[in-house]
């Protein structure tokens, strides 16, 4: 069985009307000023979800997102034919976490940026549970799109979460487990938003996938 304990969680779910500029004003105190002006909405929320979480160089970071920097992608496309260098680099996966850790000037050894849709949460959790690092920071989120959302190519909601996963059960509020085995077919994997909502509400989750049984439980 692969297992990690959860001593820390935070979920950022801003008012649906919030835009990047609003988040920048709301969260200004959490970021270095020279980083703040270039941060995307998702980068700001990811940073807020990890606020107070000291990331060590030997920690591993797992990042999950289906759509990533949707707004920046839309703006970069709009910048052609004079493509914007700033929007180009910010639109590249996995920009949100890099915005946060570059702001902190915090190197890390292993960084797992996971994408996809149907089994995204499962892939990301597998990456986290297989990590030899004693401490794994699991973060993820989305930002609400504009024209891409109208074409079902973006998230309808803006959110981010941060979870610390440890091997040490001391102080744990919950845990995530994967028990390999069995031959039953896979069940639908929770979406990234459903996972974030479960973390926020401390709801338990159970499903079957990747050849085993998954459980998210709280104490």
């Amino acid at each position, binding site marked *: 069985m692969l297992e990690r304990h959860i001593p820390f969680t935070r979920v950022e779910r801003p008012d649906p009307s919030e835009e990047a500029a609003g988040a920048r004003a709301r969260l200004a105190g959490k970021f270095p000023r020279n980083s703040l002006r270039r941060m995307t909405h998702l980068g700001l929320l990811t940073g807020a979800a990890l606020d107070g979480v000291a990331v060590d160089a030997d920690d591993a970071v797992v990042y999950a997102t289906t759509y990533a920097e949707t707004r920046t992608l839309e703006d970069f496309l709009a910048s052609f034919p004079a493509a914007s260098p700033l929007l180009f680099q910010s639109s590249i996966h996995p920009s949100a976490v890099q915005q946060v850790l570059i702001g902190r000037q915090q190197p890390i*050894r292993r960084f797992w940026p996971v994408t996809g849709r149907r089994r995204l949460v499962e892939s990301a959790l597998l990456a986290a549970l297989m990590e030899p690092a004693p401490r794994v920071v699991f973060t993820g989120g989305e930002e609400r799109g504009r024209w891409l959302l109208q074409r079902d190519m973006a998230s309808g909601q803006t959110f981010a979460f941060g979870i610390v996963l440890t091997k040490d059960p001391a102080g744990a509020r919950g845990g995530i487990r994967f028990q390999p085995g069995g031959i039953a077919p896979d069940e639908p994997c929770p979406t990234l938003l459903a996972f974030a909502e479960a973390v926020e509400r401390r709801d338990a989750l159970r499903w079957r996938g990747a050849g085993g049984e998954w459980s998210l439980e709280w104490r």
Partner: protein
Amino acid sequence: MSPIADLLPTGIRACGCLTPFGGAEATVAALLDGRRALQLRPVLGPDGGDCVPIALMDSKDMAETLPPRWLPALRTLAGAIPPGTWGSTRHPVVVTSSNFGVGSLYAYLGSRDAGHLRHGAPFACVELLQDEFGWGEQVHVFSHACVSAHIGLMHATRLLQAEIADSVLVFSFDFVSPFVAGGFHSLKILNSELPAPYAARATGSIGLGDGAAFAVLTCEPTPFRIEAQALHNEMHHFTGNRADGSGFAACAETIAAAAGGRRVWVKGHGTGTLEAGRLEAETYARVLPGAPLVSWKGSLGHTLGSCGLVELALTVESMRLGRAPGTIGSTAPCFTETVALTPFATAGYAGVVVASNAFGGAHAALLLSHA
């Protein structure tokens, strides 16, 4: 940080790639001949712009088509993958890319043809491949700019070592589009000069190239194996490295320790940028003294998130052939004397370090050897 590589030996049951020259055998032959696939082409393809070095697999000049121009090439590549129940629980697929089908979004804005949107997002692109190739649901997707393929290889290794999988197909592809060429051009590193990796010259430049590759990894004994893998993320600057080279050193020292003093050569990242090229060359000259350093991006261009897997397949083919291509496009003086400008025999080398770097100061390296 403790300099410990992932020492999880993993066999390569099969691997292959596609470049503008063709498969791995044809590509290595072209590289040994010193041929360049890069040609000066308009940066925005049919929409024009400055001419920059781009290497394409077809003659469509980056025109976004329906179906996308990368799909026929990927069908060809997929034909070389050993048959299997790919995407099943015991035989998962790991897909990596930095671009996926993002060029289709640029095409949509120009044409307003909604057909382009069907594969514009990474998930949509991967789901298209699942349908196309009959892969099951167990498909893991990673995107970490130009070290994406290395991330996929390490994840695959862990799935095997955790005994969650029996074999893993790692599949990676990146095709140049006006979207990505325009982006690199905006950063001024994609200009009218052909790249000359590791050459000490006045202006740095890169080229971009189409590339796709696969590898089937297994714990079973195979002729070639990945002995160790290392990652490091500087998180210093989006497009620059720490000036003291500590980011390069963190990854290179780790993989050099795994080599354990054996004689190896280095297939470096070497895109043609000056500062990163100098730091990379100096670092490997220090941690692996005397190890020949080559880059093939002066011919093939930078195949972006897929470069680690494309160049792994070319490295395997070079070892199989017993001859490694030199650093095409470059001439002396170079940043270090270890830069190999001409082909050399691989006999006598115990292995190869295959290294890649990416935005955000990401570094990845693996140690490939004969089993």
